[in-house]
């Protein structure tokens, strides 16, 4: 359909964008438009004002900031996917990003847009919690940094306030870690039913550290801390990992839909976690 009429602004700085958001009550930020445009066209959303942040240079690109990588909110998936810094220090992000939609979607859709949208079935939120990313949010009172566990607040809901902008995401470096993203979906072009993002650091044959994030196992992405704890110090063998992965669904509250009920999702979480961790260990 054709979206309802709206006023369109295309600011070139974060401050200008924030000003527009404050000035207009019913304004919506437009990033890559891969989630917002369908909502507008279906008239599920009909904001009076669109603030397109495409032209804010500061929001684009990946940079090295010592012990962290900084990914600008407007960096398109396609750039993230092929960025050498990301692939060296946070390979889990490269792997998960490669599974997002199709090439067209990845050229338009953005890293920050996907995280700010916070779809429970999206790929990047689970990765962000697994990797302990932190989120830089700009507002009237300047910038604040929010950890991933506090950023995702529920279905389509984040710490970004109405008049705020997600500016960039800081990801600690996981240089030398093994990583694997396990996305379980029905067709290549579909959201995940459950997804598991895993990164492990090996010390000899045993697991020194592990990070596991679960997608679509509740309204917000889940960090599988029980699995992580159970893995530490264990050999990276099928039996040991199976035992640890059995706790993947602990404390989750997955929903039910056509693709599966909560029980099935809990079961999938354990199977996929086992596979993801083993695969991650295999690449470490």
């Amino acid at each position: 359909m054709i979206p309802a009429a709206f006023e369109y602004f295309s600011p070139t700085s974060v401050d200008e964008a924030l000003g527009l958001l404050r000035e207009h009550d019913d304004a919506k930020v437009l990033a890559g438009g891969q989630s917002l445009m369908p909502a507008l066209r279906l008239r599920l959303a009909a904001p009076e004002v669109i603030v397109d942040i495409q032209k804010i240079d500061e929001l684009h690109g990946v940079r090295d900031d010592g012990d962290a990588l900084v990914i600008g909110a407007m960096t398109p998936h396609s750039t993230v996917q092929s960025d050498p810094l990301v692939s060296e220090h946070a390979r889990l992000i490269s792997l998960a990003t490669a599974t997002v939609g199709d090439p067209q979607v990845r050229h338009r859709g953005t890293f920050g847009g996907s995280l700010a949208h916070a779809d429970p079935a999206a790929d990047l939120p689970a990765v962000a919690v697994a990797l302990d990313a932190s989120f830089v949010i700009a507002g009237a009172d300047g910038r604040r940094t929010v950890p991933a566990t506090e950023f995702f607040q529920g279905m389509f809901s984040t710490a970004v306030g109405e008049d705020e902008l997600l500016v960039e995401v800081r990801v600690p470096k996981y240089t030398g870690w093994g990583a694997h993203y396990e996305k379980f979906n029905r067709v290549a072009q579909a959201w995940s039913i459950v997804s598991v993002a895993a990164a492990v650091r090996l010390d000899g044959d045993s697991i020194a550290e592990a990070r596991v994030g679960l997608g679509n196992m509740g309204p917000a992405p889940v960090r599988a801390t029980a699995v992580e704890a159970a893995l530490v110090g264990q050999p990276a063998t099928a039996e040991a990992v199976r035992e640890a992965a059995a706790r993947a669904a602990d404390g989750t509250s997955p929903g039910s839909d056509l693709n599966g009920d909560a029980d099935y999702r809990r079961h999938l979480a354990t199977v996929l976690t086992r596979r993801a961790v083993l695969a991650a260990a295999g690449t470490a």
Partner: protein
Amino acid sequence: MTATEERPATEIGASRRRKEDARLITGRTRWTDNIVLPGLQHLAMVRSPFAHARITAIDTEAAKAASGVVAVITGADIADEQGALPNAWAVIPDQKAPVHPSMAVDHVAFAGEIVAMVIARTAAEANDAADLVDVDYEELEPALELKAAARDEVIAHPDLGTNVSAVWSYDSAESGTGGDVEAAIGAARDGGIVIEKEFRQQRLIPAFMEPRSIVVDPTTEQMTVWSSTQVPHFVKIFIALVLGIPESKIRVIAPDVGGGFGGKLQFTPEEVLTVIAARRTGKPCKYTETRSESLMVAHHGRDQWQQVTLAANADGTVTGLKVELIADMGAYLGLVTSAIPLLGAFMYNGIYKFPAYHLGITNVFTNKTWTDAYRGAGRPEATYAIERLMDELAARVGVDALEIRERNWIKHEEFPFSTVSGLRYDSGNYEAATAKARQLFGYDDLRAEQRKRRESGDPVQLGIGISTFTEMCGLAPSRWLGSMGYVGGGWEHAAVRMLPTGKVEVVTGTSPHGQGHETAWSQLVADRLGVAFEDVEVLHGDTQVAVRGLDTYGSRSLAVGGMAVLAAADKVIEKAKPIAAQLLEANADDLDFSGGRYGVRGTDAGMTMAELAFAVFQGHKLDGSAEACLDADATLDPDDFSFPHGTHLCAVEVDTETGATKIRSYVCVDDVGVVVNPMIVEGQVHGGLAQGIAQALFEEAVHDEGGTLVTGSFDQYLVPGAPDLPAFETARTETPATTNQLGVKGVGEAGTIASTPAVVNAIVDALRPLGVTDVQMPCTPYRVWKAIQQGAQEGAQQKEARS
């Protein structure tokens, strides 16, 4: 075509690249929505969000006052003008059907039914104003669940008093085509085998690529209607009948049409309403549906429950088949809604020699989107039931599933064969197709691997699925259609015109929407008239050009329409003969026609068709003894159907931990008779397979408890893409049909009909040792996983009961 492309010895059999593809693929063509006329107005529809409701009030004031709005029309405004949409097939004389208005007046029977329309200067303004139309509804309880609806628990159309539209049956004992099924089942219960199953044919959405669009120009003497339809000729007649416009004042054009799959074999509310809008305002109007509207309201397909009973001797020889099915019509009868189960009625016995057969059909209304033809229409349902049953029978007898089929199928020397459902199969060779498929598939090696995986308890199990199918196609014989209650005929028409410059125009009454008729018909005519492939132009889809025709569906175009083209070409050759004789000063009996030239036997004298065409155009030397025209028309109505068949083999890997199914290999050997263009046949098979596999694994139209379509976008309605499908291995055997002059059969639906049971059989085959005997379609990972859990549970209970 490039100059370097070699000219084949005969066009028929050559893999010509499709001449229409460049414009279709690049979009440099006229899709209906591309058509812009001076003063064009745009429509937007207001649709009911409720599946079943009474309209108590509609307030259009705000919409009328909105910017750019020309008019807002409600059902009450056009109650006397809109007529009722037609159903063209009474499967029984007293078939029940609700009146089907294009726009609801006071009662809505499915979510998405039109309750008002806005005519505005731009599409955006029409959309905006449609949001302002305020409709008050009194919600009624919807009849949604098919079995409950069949019991009349909730009535979809209170005025009708019942949901049952028609009950129809075929019984081989009564019809004299076989024995008594109940007796066969009774006998089998005593020492034989009786298999009872219930199969679900889920509701599907045709999901053609180009959403439907209509443009109506009322300013020409013949009102011009462009529509993205499979059936322009039907649309012309029905506009006349429904709206009372003289047929001679209507011109319908189906320009290039982006797919249909049966979904555009319809006369739609939107067509009627666009005509009404144009007629009322006196200006051209356009309506183009959104993808969401298309998925919600363009008719759906399948949706049946099948209760099947198969009786067999202990050795697996089938002695009888009984089928009781209920079919969901949805809220209204479309053109052939009521006949979809009927089109499968004669196919449940498949390729087999069953001695007894009974089929009962109950057509039922619900408060869901109307259903109608969808690729295969009735035959996929029948093929699914019998091919699933043959696998179950093999498991019960304990023999290989190919072996059980061979014990029951019609042998090649037994053709022509009169079946238990009263059809006459003219030709076929199931042994040959099966042998070829078996070899290409590596059947024995895969069975060996399957055994190994079973023994080792591999979490990924291998399954092999078989489907040996046949179908009746080439929808035609008018007499047969009439005897079954269809109001129309099944003939087809063509014209061949020799142009003065030696080029040829072929006019066909079929209406391609992706099949490649322009290429295939050019090949037919090039061979027959001895002209170059490039010199043939195929015209279609415009009722001012293709004056007579019955359009494209039911794998009929080549077997019926293509044969009409040949008949017309033959007439051209006949008409040229006396003219050639006169100009060559020879006796007509001394002329031979070959290679596009009439030659005088025993001499070098002769004239090509191009020379004759030019001579006729000039007329200077004609003495008037023969009509000075080479052009010819032909109408063709075949005596019988054609019966393509084939053997499809599918290997799947089922991940028993997650329930995920991956198709590892797919081999099909189809016998579609003589092939005009192998590349087109291959394309049809590939697309058909994708659609049939989609039913097995991916697609399902689901409504919620309120009757709203949950799978209303491609986010939820999962149409598979190339990454979700294996590389198909296709091959052919060629047993010519005897029911048409070329020996062709149909291929448009074959892949879809055959593949669905092959995939589900493979899944069940993989999981049978785990206690799984069926999985409902689509076999999602979730359903497969649950079936495995249930199988394990039942296995444990049985073990407990034994100990």
